[in-house]
């Protein structure tokens, strides 16, 4: 056996892998490659997903679920509309115009990744783009980070790299929630250090500029424990998300017209 081949071929492969990393990270993102994989693997994932759903529940449950999600999206839209008309100051004036062109797309979670990412079976064909809000029947799920032709990738709210602007349901105190790595919980920090805060308080999204990535008024979770450390600049607490992010099935994406 030629021993030199044992070194030369693996070395070439290592260099090739390193080159891929360098190009994707520092030169130009390899979007065509990702889109191709989304078509190939995404179609297969969608097929497996719809097969297991058909197997697991009858078509009737599915249609009811879809109807439920649509109604919930409508309710949310109505709530936000009321919110906006109630306090214009909360949102910029330009935000009022998007409400007309807004709709929701329902999708199923078909694949789960390790790093707080899931795949949903809707993509650019359904009008999805990056930075859209994803929620389910219980509350906020996360945001779309990448939209492929037939599937999209969603970063969960519990991702440590994500941060969501929120306000408290009762007191309207403004803050930020970020994911706590590996625990499925969120860390809330309120901007005012002496803000009233107790376990059981509800957290809803504040809404981002131009509604990307988060629309206002989506329930996020409840406060489970408050950290009392005097002298800190912010008030912190642990929040349990309403949505069961480890067992997601049907979700809705709010499509915001650009």
């Amino acid at each position: 056996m030629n021993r030199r081949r044992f070194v030369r071929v693996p070395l070439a492969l290592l260099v090739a892998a390193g080159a891929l990393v360098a190009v994707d990270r520092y030169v130009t993102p390899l979007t065509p490659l990702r889109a191709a994989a989304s078509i190939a693997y995404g179609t297969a994932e969608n097929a497996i997903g719809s097969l297991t759903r058909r197997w697991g529940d009858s078509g009737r449950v599915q249609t009811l679920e879809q109807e439920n999600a649509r109604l919930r999206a409508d309710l949310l839209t109505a709530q936000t509309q009321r919110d906006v008309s109630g306090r214009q100051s909360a949102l910029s004036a330009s935000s009022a115009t998007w409400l007309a062109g807004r709709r929701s797309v329902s999708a199923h979670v078909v694949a789960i990744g390790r790093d707080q990412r899931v795949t949903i079976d809707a993509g650019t064909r359904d009008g999805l783009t990056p930075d859209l809000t994803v929620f389910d029947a219980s509350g906020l799920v996360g945001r779309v980070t990448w939209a492929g032709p037939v599937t999209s990738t969603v970063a969960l709210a519990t991702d440590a790299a994500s941060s969501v602007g929120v306000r408290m349901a009762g007191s309207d105190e403004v803050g930020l929630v970020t994911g706590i790595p590996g625990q499925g919980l969120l860390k809330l920090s309120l901007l005012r250090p002496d803000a009233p805060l107790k376990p059981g308080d509800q957290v809803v999204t504040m809404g981002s500029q131009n509604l990307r990535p988060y629309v206002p008024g989506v329930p996020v979770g409840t406060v489970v424990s408050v950290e009392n450390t005097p002298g800190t600049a912010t008030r912190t607490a642990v929040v349990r998300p309403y949505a069961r992010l480890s067992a997601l099935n049907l979700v809705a994406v709010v499509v915001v017209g650009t």
Partner: protein
Amino acid sequence: MRLALLVAVLPLLQVTMADRLPWGGPDLMVLAVVGVALARGPLWGAAYGFAGGLAVDLAPPADHTIGLSALAFCLTGFVCGLRDLIPAASDRPSAPRILAMAATGTYLALILQTAGRMLLDHAPWDPVSMFQAMAWTVAGGSLVLTGLLVLGDRRTRSRRVEPRRIAALSRSVRV
């Protein structure tokens, strides 16, 4: 042929089934790469690691730098396959020895992959899911892998081998 099919299907099984388990699941591709490397040597190990890692990098919802897992698994496959080049190891390896190599290999692959994600994609240090992946893959998976390899070894030894396969066998099984 069967190995090529496996490389295409494993990422799919991983994201639709293994990672849906309530307590996490083993990293199937890491196990496949280490298994192929241990059975067939560094050339196969590196090639399989590259192809498998690339598939893992591309299958949605993967959201990290493309080529990261390919690099980590390629290196792992190569190192794991080296057991045939080390003279002392060229005797028929015993089951505990294969187990030790499988555990070391899977550990190396997971560590390299995580380190790459933290360095390049600024992924946060997540001890809980890291521990879960380690427990499933290194502790559980390498046991199963060793069983398969030892069984496969016995079967190929007892079977009459066709001349075409002798070259491949002489690498993995020094008679």
